C-alpha cells in the first residue's frame, strides 16, 4: 500500500493569495488594523439620537434576569463574582446611539458593573427593531448555527444545504418557517465586537460575550471583561513559563511566552492609561461600541448598516 498524498489535490497557493496575506500583515505592522475603524469612516450620514431616558425599555431585562434565566451556572461556580456584579449594578446609564443603523434598530444600555476587586466588569445591551410591525429582529449568530451551509449542494451529504436557516424559539429551519411572524421582514444585528475606551482604538480586555434573541423579541447582549488584564502582576500569574508542552523546545517556548507576557502587559498598560484619560472628574469612564444590522430576504443578506453607541460607566 502507498500513502495518499492529499496535497496533490490542491492547487499551488496562488500568488495573489500570498500577496494578499503579505499585504495584510504589512499593514498590520504599519498601524493597528481596525476593521471597525473603517466602519467609522462609513458613518457618513450620522443620525444622532439621544436615547437616554426613553421610556421604551422592557424593564425585566438586565443582568439579574440574565443570570437568573440564561447563565445560571455563573452564580454557582463564581458566587463572589456574581455578588459583586449584581450588588454593584449600575442602571439608567447615559448613552447615545448614532449611525444609519439607528433608522432600523434602537439599542439601549441596560446595565453595567465595574468590580475591580473581583477583576470583572460587565455590560448588557438590548436591541429592538424600530418598526416592530415591519421587522423581526434576530441576532446574526443565530443564522446557520449547525455548520451545514455549503457553497454548493453535495449529493452525498443529505445535511448539506445552500439555504440559510435561522434558530428561533420555533425551531431551526428556513426563516419563513421559524420566524415568529414570517410576514415581517427579517432583520439581523451583528453584536460581535469590542468595547473601545473613549475615542481611542484601545478596547477593554474582553473575557466573554453572549448575544441572543429573547423570547419577547429584543436581542440581548452581555459582555464580561477581564480586569486582570489591566494589571501587570496578574498577567504574570497567567503565563506559565515552567510547564513546557510536549514537543516544544524549552528555550523557544519560554521566549514565546515571554513575548506574550510583554505584549499582554503593553496592551494592559495601554488600556489602563486609556481608562485614566477617559474617566471624568465624577468617575465616569467613556466607552463606545460598534455594531451593524442587515436585512435578509430571499436567502440573501442586505447591505451591512453600521451604528455606534457611546455610553459611560462609573468606575470610582
Amino acid at each position, binding site marked *: 500500500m502507498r*500513502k495518499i498524498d*492529499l496535497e496533490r489535490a*490542491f492547487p499551488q497557493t496562488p500568488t495573489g493569495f500570498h500577496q*494578499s496575506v503579505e499585504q495584510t500583515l504589512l499593514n498590520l505592522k504599519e498601524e493597528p488594523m481596525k476593521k471597525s475603524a473603517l466602519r467609522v469612516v462609513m458613518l457618513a450620514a450620522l443620525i444622532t439620537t439621544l436615547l437616554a431616558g426613553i421610556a421604551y425599555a422592557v424593564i425585566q431585562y438586565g443582568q439579574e434576569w440574565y443570570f437568573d434565566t440564561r447563565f445560571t451556572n455563573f452564580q454557582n461556580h463564581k458566587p463572589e463574582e456574581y455578588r459583586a456584579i449584581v450588588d454593584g449594578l449600575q442602571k439608567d446609564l447615559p448613552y447615545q446611539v448614532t449611525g444609519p443603523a439607528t433608522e432600523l434598530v434602537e439599542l439601549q444600555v441596560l446595565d453595567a458593573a465595574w468590580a475591580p476587586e473581583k477583576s470583572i466588569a460587565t455590560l448588557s445591551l438590548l436591541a429592538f427593531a424600530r418598526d416592530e410591525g415591519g421587522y423581526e429582529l434576530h441576532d446574526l449568530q443565530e443564522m446557520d448555527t449547525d455548520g451545514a451551509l455549503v457553497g*454548493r449542494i453535495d449529493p*452525498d451529504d443529505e445535511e448539506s444545504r445552500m439555504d440559510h436557516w435561522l434558530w428561533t424559539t420555533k425551531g431551526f429551519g428556513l426563516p419563513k418557517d421559524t420566524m415568529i411572524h414570517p410576514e415581517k421582514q427579517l432583520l439581523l444585528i451583528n453584536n460581535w465586537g469590542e468595547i473601545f475606551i473613549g475615542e481611542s482604538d484601545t478596547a477593554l480586555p474582553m473575557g466573554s460575550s453572549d448575544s441572543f434573541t429573547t423570547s419577547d423579541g429584543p436581542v440581548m447582549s452581555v459582555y464580561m471583561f477581564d480586569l486582570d488584564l489591566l494589571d501587570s502582576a496578574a498577567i504574570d500569574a497567567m503565563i506559565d513559563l515552567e510547564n513546557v508542552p510536549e514537543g516544544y523546545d524549552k528555550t523557544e517556548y519560554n521566549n514565546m511566552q515571554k*513575548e506574550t507576557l510583554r505584549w499582554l502587559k503593553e496592551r494592559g498598560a495601554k488600556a489602563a492609561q486609556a481608562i485614566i484619560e477617559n474617566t471624568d472628574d465624577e468617575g465616569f469612564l467613556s466607552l463606545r461600541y460598534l455594531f451593524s444590522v442587515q436585512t435578509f430576504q430571499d436567502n440573501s443578506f442586505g447591505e451591512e448598516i453600521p451604528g455606534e453607541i457611546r455610553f459611560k460607566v462609573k468606575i470610582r
Partner: protein
Amino acid sequence: MDAKTFSQGVLKIERSLFRIAYTYLGHEQDCADAVQDALIISWEKRHTLRQPQYFGTWLTRILINCAKQRLRAQRPNHELADTYPAPQEDTVENLALKMALENLPLKDRIPLILFHLDGYSVKEVSNILHLPQGTVKSRLARARMKLKEALKVEEVLVHAQN
C-alpha cells in the same frame, strides 16, 4: 504578541490557511478575502489567545468562521465548480484525487484535511470544529473509507507531522 511574532505565525501556516479557505470557498479571491478577514479579526482579538502554542488552531477556527460568513453572503445559486483551480500537477491521478476529495461532504472533508494534511491531532480538530472527539474520529473514518472507495486503490492515509 507583537506584529512580527503574529506575522511569523501566520506565514508558518499560510499554506494550511489557503487549503482551509479553498475547501470552503474554492474561488481564489474569496479565499484571499476570507483569510484577510480572519487575519484582521485575529489581530484585533489576539489578547484572547492566552497560550501561543494554540495559535494555529485558534486562527484556523477564526478562518472557518470567516469562510462560513462569506458562504452566507453568497447567493443561493452561486456556482463554484467552474472556479476551482486544477491541482498542482494536472495529471489524471491528481484530478481523480481532487474529485474524490471534493465529493466528500464538507463536514467530513474538513476534519480529514486538518488531521491528515495539517497535522492537527483529533483533540485539536475537535477544538477547531467545536465537535466531540468521537464525532471527529467517526468523520475521519468515514472520510477515509469514502476516499479509498472512490479511488479504488489500496492506499493509506497517514497523520501529517505538524
